[in-house]
Structures are given as C-alpha cells and as structure tokens.
C-alpha cells in the first residue's frame, strides 16, 4: 500500500496546486515542496524494505476483461529514481518560489506536479501498459512545461513533442510486441518469459525499439536536438526535468529492460557506440556555446551519453557505475542549472560574452559553481570523480574482442577532456574572466540574489560533497539497483574514493592535466571555438524534415478547401445517393427483399404528402423570407398530420408545439434581416437541384425498400404488453422516455441545456458592436423599412411608433390565457404517465406562456429574471441526474425509477425526472426568446447574454468573456487616462472598443451598477 500512498500524495500535489497558487501565488512552491517530502515519507517504508533486499509490490485488477492489472513494484532502480524525482523536485519547488515572477504561476506548479506523478508512476510501474501510459504522460507534461514559456517555447515545445512522441510510438510497438509474444502485460513476467531465449531475432527487434525510445527521451544522437531546444523553458523546469527527471526516464527504461537485453549484441553495440558518440558530440557542442544554459543542455546530452554507454556494457560493474553517475549527475547538474538561473537573475544575461566578473561580487555562487563543475569534470575527491572513474572501469569490460573495451575507454577519456574543458569554461568565463566587463555599464548593479534562490540552488551541489567522502553508504542502494537490473549476478559493490594506482586513475590524471592546459590557454582557445554566426542547429534540421510534409499536407488540403458550401456538401450527398440509392435499387432488382407488408398506406398519408409537397416547394422557391417561413410551417403541419395518422399522439403534440415555437423564433430573427433572400450564384442552382433530386430519390427509394417488410418487432410487443405492468403507466411512449430509455432522455436534455449555454457562450464572446453593428461601420447593414406615414399626432403614426397601444389587446389576452396555460401545462405534465402528455409537451405549453409574455410586452425587455434561463437549465439537468443517482442508490441501477404506492395514487421518481426535462426545455426556450428577441437599443443581445451569467446589469459589459487579464488591464489604464484628461467614458484611443463600466467591473470586480448612473447608454 505504501507505493499507492506515494502516488496518492503526488496526486494530492496536483490537486493542491489550484488552491495553493490562488492563495499564495508563487510561494505555493513551499507547501508543494512539503507535499513532495511527505511523498518521500509515504515511500519510506517501501524504501527501507527495498534496502533490506525485499521487493515491494502492489496490484489490483484494472480492466478485468483484458486481464489488465494496475501493478506497482518498488525495487532498487525504482528506489533511486523515485528519490531523485521527489527530492530534487522538492528542492526545485523551493527554488522556484524565488525564481518565478510574482503571480499565480498556476501552470508551472500544476504541470510540474503532473510531471512528478507520471514520473513516479513510470518508475514504479510493474505493468507494461501502465509503463507506457506514464511514459507518454511524462512527454506531455514536459511538452506543456516548455510550451507555457510563451512565444519562444512554441516551436521548441512542438519539436520536443515530435521527438518524444516518436519514442512513444516505438515504445508502444515494443510493448505491443512484448504483450503479444508473452501473453502477459506484467513487466516482470514478460521479461522472464522463455520466448526471448527461443527467438533471438524477436528479442533483438524489441531491444532496438526500446533503446530507440530511450534515446529520444534521454537525448541521444540523433534525437539530442530537442534538449537544447527545450532550454526555452523556465530555469527551474530545466533544473528538474532536463537535468534530473525527464531525461533520466530514458536511462530508467534502459536499466529496467537490462535484465532482458544486457546480453543482446545489438543492444551492447548500439548503446556503447551511440552513447560515446553522443558524449563526445555533446561535449564539443557544449564547448562552443556562449549561452550558459545551452552549454548546460549540451553538457547534459554528453553526460547522458556516458551513462548510456555504461549501461550498454551491461556488466555488473558498469551498471553500478551508471546508476552512481545518474545520482551524481542529478545532484550536480540540477544545482548547476539553478546556478545559471542565479547568474541570469543577477545580471540579466546568460551569455558569457556579456557577463562581468562575478567572482568577487558573488563569491558564494562562484564557489558553489566551482564545486559543481569540478564534480562534473571528475575532479577528486568529489562524487563525480568516483562515478566517472567507475564508468571508465566499466567501459573496459565492453563485450566483444579485447580492443573494443580499450576503444570505448579511450573514447570516454577523450570525451572527458571535453567535459573538463566546458566545465572550466563555465567557471572561468562565467565568473572569473569577465569577458563582458568592458561593456558592462558602470552604474548597473547586480540584482541581489534572494536567499531561497541561492540556498536551494547550492543545496544539491553541496549535498554531493560529503556523499563523496562517505561514498560507501551508497553501496547498499546501488547493490539493490544492480540486483534489479541484473538479477542473475551477485552484487558486491564497494565504492571508495581511492582504489590504488590503476589505469583509470592514470586516465583521470591525464584528463585533468589536459584540462589544466585548456584552462591556461582558455583566453585564446575557447573564444576561437565559438561560432561567429549560429550555424544550422537541430531546430533547422527538424524544420527541414517536417516542412515538406507540411507543404504536401497543404497541397492536399487545397483539393478540398473551398468557401462554397456546395463543394463540401456535394461529396456527402453524392456518396449517400450512390450507396443508399444504388444499394436499395440493387436489392430491389435482385429480389433480395421480402414482400411489403399489406396495409401500409392510408388516404390520410396522401393529404399529408400534398401539404408537404406544396410547403417544400414554397420554401425552396420563395424569395421572400416571410413566405418561406409560412411555407416551412405548412410543412410542419403536414408532418404533424402524418404523425397523428401514424398513431402517435405524444409525438404529434410535440411536433405541433415545436413547430409553433420554431416559427416564433424564426420570426424573432427575421426582424433583423432583410426582407428577401439574396440571389444565389447562377451556376450553383442547377448543380444544387441535381444534387438535391438525386439525394431525395435515394432517400425515398431507401425508405421504400428498407422499411415495411417485416412483422411488428418483439420489443414493441414487450413494451405494449409488459410496459404497463412494470411501470404502472399506460402511456407507453412516455414510460419509454422516462423509465426504459431514460438515459437517452438524459442525454437529450443535456443537449438542450448545452444549446442554451452555447448560445450564451457564443454571444457573450462577441463584442456588442460586432453583434449589432451600427450602420456606418457595416457595409451590409439594411435599413429599417421606411413607411410613408401621416404626420405626428395621427392615429397611423401612433400605431407604428407607440407600441404600447398595440400591445394592450395582447396583454389582456395574456391575463386570461396565462393561468389557463399553467393549468393545462400542469395537467399535461401530471397525466403524462398514462395519457398523451409528459414533461416535453407540458414544457412546450409552458414555453407558450413565455412567448405570450414576450409578445405582449410593449418594451424591449427580457422575460423573467436575469439569470432564470440558465438556472432552469442547470437545475433541470441536475434534477435529472440526481433522480438517476437516487435510482442507483435505492434500486442499484442509474436512472432506475423508484416507485411507491401511496394509496390514492402511484408515485414514481420518473415524475421528478420529467420535471427536470420540463425545467431544461423551459430554460432553453426562455433563453432563446431573451437572446433572439433583443432588438438592440438600450438592451442588446450581448447584454442579455451577459445577464444570463452575471445577473442584472445596467449596460453591456465592454469586455468579452475569454479576454486575457492583460487586455483588461490595458483598457482599465486607458479608462483611467481618459478620466484624468477630463474625457468621460469615451472611445478607446486605440479603437479597441469602448471603455466603460464593464471593463472596470471585470478588472476590479465592481459591478457597473454600483458605479453611479448607468443611463448614458
């Protein structure tokens, strides 16, 4: 369980990042660091058990149908990597509290915590599927962490994602093959399977796939390009992910699969050669860099190469050395990254050519950096020296002929000279030489380093110093890690600083001597190596590789890109006509369909057909929008008749009411649109007609051939005979809606609610003046029709311009009809279970009340209170879901109705569900009337939309939803400036919209209504 608790505490950090950043801002790093340490505490029992030589496992069924288990397993490797991820993570979080800009920094802390969860999950996973998922999650989290750093991170994050997902694909392939070959998803079982011995070719293939995945993550050639690119991320991200965690995920993967692949020749050759080549390449590039952070990135590439090579050797000594170097590197490199952040913070630059002499100004930072760099360079008596010397020893054991060991050894020694040189460059060019001293302004003081920043940057480096002196304490954990990576050997690690005089010590001394020579010649040598102009880098290579693909994609897109709707719809219609029409015709002609059931047609169908035909013709031919609407409603009436004729009183009623409401809605929109449709392009008509006729013919043919050729279905018999007994309701359609298939209905009323919410969302993100543009700014504005009237004071003039008089009859009518409609609505609702009626129909009748109130109003105002529609929609959906949950609790099935006989009647929770339907439909209609019915003027559509969310407002807000705080602050500033200049709420000087109370509201949280009069609008 302790493994689960570790993960749970890590997940807690993810959840806590929301409230903590809100309350504490960037200081949220402190409590988060404490949570990380708590995760270490949760892991501690497992850690001690592992140290004692046990293996801690935990497992529970995950997807039982697939035999998937959620298995965790802590062994020596997992222990090392969990500790690195959590402890370095905690240090970096503490450092971030001083490094980040003041502010919420939610995305930083959130993504960092997500990354930690996925990393811990990855190293503890004992299931191939879980391993793969966590692997991809680390890729995603690191992508997000790079991408959040603004413009410079955009391209870099995409390239990182491209490369790491490439590795994700190879890992997916490897995992897939392993599961298929072994028949288990358990990591340990799969690795122990005999198939790997029986089929060496398969083993080699999987090994190559796994090592490719590791290469992408651990930045090995040629996938190393993403790591320097990723330096666009904030320094704490680099210190954590790009020194300690994400790049080590690849190392972890290699170690994890070492038991299986350590004796596969391809594995040895690829890891050793690519590792050493990457080591040398990274060192060379690092030496040529002037940006300290890029230098660090290439140095990481180089060090990872060394580790990969050691793992490739695969002997117990080499693997121990690799794990030791993982620890050492995590310590000194994360510290050095943070030190670069300290320098950057103090001077504002990371370019060694512009840095002043920092040794005296920042002595503590200087000496810490010296320690870190000395460890990296392998200077005794530091941890880096022990680990590097061990790796050199390990490389001598490279499998193959004797010369290979020596070749690897010499290669590593040469690469180490480069390592020493760039470490010297960091120290001397960064702190001592002061190459930028001449150009450094005399009066530009260095920024003081906040204590938290300095302390936590130094902490990992300083921690490595005593560790080197008592390096023997690492014997046990390294033994355990080795036992996990090479279960077949007996571990007996004895780490020590002094091994006596041997070939590795001589090599180390040679490296140091060469390095000292470089230091002495540094003033001439190192600047000469720096390229004067930046050459083509990895980004350019990736660009060159992907640009042709992108271009080809755009060429392909040109084939289907068009503004004309015909070209988009035509393929669909043609395909439909071909498949449905052709298929049906084929079935009919070959006689493969049953005979039609007798008695399908009635004379009433013919009446409906005539009405529909005339109506459709009217809609299509009419040039007047009004005539088209009338024709459309005629079609609706025809459909209603048809439905009643088919024996559906509920559906027919619904259709009739919906038809009425739809026509009302269309009329609300039409009042803002020109009277007539525009002309269509001439060429389109014939094509459109041809397409339409073929689609219609296909649909008709399909309907004729594919329906009416069987007996009544079994499910119909079931509902009709059993339904009333089960539900105690005689209206079978209604009982299907609220009981048998209530989930459908729940989905449907959610769609209704979403339509209402989407209307508000869309309309409130469009600026008022774009929503109802004033005439001058809109070329296509259509004037209100000018009707020649008699002069003021005449009855004709009053009838048009004074709406109050017009509305009087309607208002009188509402007084009588509204109570009646309420009564009818209630009766329809109540009797729905047994007779035609139910929530939908009752709600549509209720909506008619809303429509009547709207029509009877003489002023342009909304129906009902400001937030009522959204509250109705929300409570309707909530009520339906709660009823469903009630069914789950009482009856054991979601949405199962709970029914009780109370003597005089039979009560069922389906009625409550129906009430939810009622509320959602009513809310949608009310929202639609309020939004579509607003006719500009003082209360525009935007304001109605805003009021659905904000409650009563005295004018439209100028800010739209989704604006960034910066835009709002800019406009608040412009507002203040306008006030200072004595200009009352005038236009924004930059023309970005009007500056008004709404902006102030969003910027300062003060409601516009509280800012004095709101009458000037």
């Amino acid at each position, binding site marked *: 369980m302790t493994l689960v608790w570790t993960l749970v505490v890590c997940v807690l950090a993810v959840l806590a990042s929301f409230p903590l950043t809100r309350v504490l801002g960037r200081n949220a790093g402190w409590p988060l660091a404490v949570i990380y340490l708590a995760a270490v505490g949760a892991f501690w029992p497992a850690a001690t058990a592992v140290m004692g030589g046990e293996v801690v496992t935990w497992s529970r069924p995950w997807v039982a149908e697939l035999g998937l288990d959620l298995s965790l397993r802590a062994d020596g490797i997992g222990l090392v990597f969990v500790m690195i991820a959590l402890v370095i993570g905690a240090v970096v979080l503490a450092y971030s509290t001083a490094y980040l800009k003041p502010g919420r920094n939610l995305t930083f802390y959130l993504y960092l915590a997500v990354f930690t969860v996925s990393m811990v999950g990855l190293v503890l996973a004992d299931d191939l599927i879980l391993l793969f998922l966590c692997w991809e999650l680390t890729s995603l989290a690191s992508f997000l962490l790079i991408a959040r750093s603004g413009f410079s991170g955009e391209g870099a994050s995409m390239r990182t994602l491209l490369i790491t997902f490439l590795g994700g694909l190879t890992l997916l392939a490897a995992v897939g093959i392993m599961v298929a070959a072994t028949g288990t998803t358990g990591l340990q079982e799969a690795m122990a399977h005999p198939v790997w011995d029986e089929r060496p070719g398969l083993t080699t293939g999987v090994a190559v796939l796994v090592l490719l995945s590791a290469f992408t993550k651990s930045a090995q050639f040629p996938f190393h390009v993403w790591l320097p690119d990723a330096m666009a991320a904030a320094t704490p991200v680099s210190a954590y992910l790009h020194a300690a965690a994400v790049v080590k995920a690849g190392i972890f993967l290699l170690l994890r699969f070492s038991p299986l692949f350590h004796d596969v020749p391809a594995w040895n050759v690829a890891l050793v050669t690519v590792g050493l080549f990457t080591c040398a390449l990274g060192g060379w590039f690092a030496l040529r860099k002037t940006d300290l952070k890029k230098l660090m990135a290439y140095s990481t590439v180089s060090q990872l190469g060394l580790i990969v090579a050691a793992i490739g050797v695969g002997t117990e000594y080499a693997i121990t050395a690799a794990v030791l170097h993982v620890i050492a590197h995590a310590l000194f490199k994360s510290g050095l990254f943070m030190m670069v952040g300290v320098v950057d913070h103090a001077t504002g630059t990371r370019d060694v050519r512009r840095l002043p002499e920092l040794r005296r100004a920042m002595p503590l930072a200087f000496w810490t950096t010296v320690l870190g760099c000395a460890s990296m360079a392998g200077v005794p008596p530091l941890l880096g020296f022990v680990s590097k010397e061990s790796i050199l020893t390990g490389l001598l054991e490279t499998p193959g002929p004797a010369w290979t060991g020596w070749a690897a050894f010499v290669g590593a020694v040469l690469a180490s000279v480069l390592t020493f040189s760039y470490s010297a460059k960091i120290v001397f060019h960064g702190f001592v030489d002061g190459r930028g001293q001449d150009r450094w302004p005399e009066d530009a003081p260095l920024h003081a380093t906040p204590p938290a920043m300095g302390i936590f940057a130094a902490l990992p480096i300083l921690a490595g110093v005593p560790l080197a002196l008592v390096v023997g304490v690492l014997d046990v954990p390294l033994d355990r890690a080795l036992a996990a990576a090479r279960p077949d050997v007996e571990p007996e690690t004895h780490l020590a600083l002094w091994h006596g005089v041997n070939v590795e010590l001589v090599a180390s001394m040679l490296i140091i001597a060469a390095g000292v020579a470089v230091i002495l010649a540094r003033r001439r040598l190192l600047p000469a190596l720096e390229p004067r102009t930046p050459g083509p880098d990895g980004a350019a290579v990736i660009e060159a590789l992907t640009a042709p693909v992108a271009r080809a994609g755009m060429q392909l897109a040109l084939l289907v890109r068009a503004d004309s709707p015909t070209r988009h719809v035509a393929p669909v219609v043609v395909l439909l006509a071909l498949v449905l029409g052709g298929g049906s015709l084929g079935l009919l002609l070959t006689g493969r369909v049953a005979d039609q059931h007798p008695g399908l047609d009635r004379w009433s169908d013919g009446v409906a057909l005539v009405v529909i035909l005339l109506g459709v013709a009217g809609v299509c031919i009419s040039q007047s929008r009004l005539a088209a609407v009338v024709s459309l409603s005629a079609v609706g009436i025809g459909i209603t008749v048809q439905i009643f004729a088919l024996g559906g009183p509920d559906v027919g009623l619904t259709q009739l009411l919906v038809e009425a409401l739809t026509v009302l809605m269309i009329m609300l929109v039409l009042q803002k649109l020109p009277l007539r449709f525009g002309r269509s392009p001439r060429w389109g008509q014939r094509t459109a007609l041809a397409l339409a006729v073929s689609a219609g013919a296909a649909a008709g043919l399909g309907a004729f051939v594919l329906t009416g050729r069987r007996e009544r279905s079994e499910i*119909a018999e079931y509902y009709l005979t059993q339904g009333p007994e089960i539900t105690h309701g005689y209206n079978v359609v209604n009982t299907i809606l609220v009981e048998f298939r209530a989930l459908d209905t729940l989905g449907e009323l959610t769609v209704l609610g979403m339509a209402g919410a989407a209307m508000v969302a869309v309309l409130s993100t469009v600026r008022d003046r774009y929503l109802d543009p004033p005439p001058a700014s809109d070329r296509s504005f259509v004037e209100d029709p000018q009707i020649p009237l008699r002069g003021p004071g005449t009855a004709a003039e009053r009838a048009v311009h004074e709406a109050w008089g017009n509305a009087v009859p309607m208002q009188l009518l509402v007084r009588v009809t509204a109570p009646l409609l309420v009564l009818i609505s209630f009766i329809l609702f109540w009797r729905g279970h047994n007779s035609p009626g139910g929530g939908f129909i009752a709600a549509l009748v209720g909506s008619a009340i809303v429509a009547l109130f709207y029509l009877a109003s003489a002023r342009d105002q909304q129906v009902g209170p400001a937030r009522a529609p959204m509250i109705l929609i929300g409570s309707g959906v909530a009520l339906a879901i709660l009823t469903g949950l009630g069914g789950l609790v009482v009856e054991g099935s979601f949405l199962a109705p709970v029914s009780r006989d109370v003597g005089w009647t039979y009560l069922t929770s389906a009625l409550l569900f129906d009430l939810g339907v009622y509320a959602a439909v009513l809310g949608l209609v009310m929202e639609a009337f309020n939004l579509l019915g607003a006719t500009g003027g003082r209360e525009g559509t935007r304001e109605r939309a805003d009021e659905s969310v904000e409650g009563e407002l005295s004018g439209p807000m100028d800010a739209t939803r989704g604006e960034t705080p910066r835009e709002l602050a800019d406009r608040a500033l412009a507002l203040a400036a306008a006030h200072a200049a004595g200009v009352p709420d005038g236009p924004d000087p930059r023309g970005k919209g009007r500056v008004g109370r709404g902006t102030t509201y969003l910027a300062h949280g003060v409601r516009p209504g509280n800012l004095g009069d709101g009458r000037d609008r």
Partner: protein
Amino acid sequence: MIIPLSIAVLVTGGVYLLLQRGMVRIIFGLALISHAANLMLLLAGVSAWRGEPLPDRVDPALATDPLPHAFVLTAIVIAFAVTVLMLALAVIGHNDDTKRMPATGEERAT
C-alpha cells in the same frame, strides 16, 4: 409507398436549401431534413399498425411500435434546440446572405 414519397420530397427540398448561401436557408434546409429523418424513423416501426400505444384504450394487437415514437419525440426536441442555436449564430452581425464573414471581435495578438 406514400410516406417514402414524402421523405423524398423533404430530402430534395432540404438538400437544395442546404446548398444555398445564407444561414437562414441552410437552417430551413436542415429543418426539412430532420423532418425526413423523423418520418424515416417512424417508418421503421412498420406503418401497417397505427393504433395509439395506449394499452388501456387501444387493443395492443393494433397499436403501433412505441419505440420509434419515443426516438422521434426526442429527435424533434433536439432538432428544435439545434435550430435555435443556429438561429442565434445567424443573428450575429447583419451579415446574412452577404459575402462578408462576420467579424468576431477577436483581435490578433501583437
């Protein structure tokens, strides 16, 4: 035979309108197509039985298949919601039936 004809007429008109310029006509076209879809669903319940599905009043042996009716009732209301949403989109700016795209009010970040 008659109702398939109605479906053919509705789909013809619906597709024709769908291919026109202007949001309002497209909305009308979709309304016609959803009518056609509803009729098609009802036909799936074989139109030879046309009694109301109210077993206490109509002989269940004559009653129509209630399941398509429940589907169609749901479909009608969803089509209504979609229509209303599209009408709201049609009303943004006075741009219906013109070649100009409606401005959204978004400004390009500088």
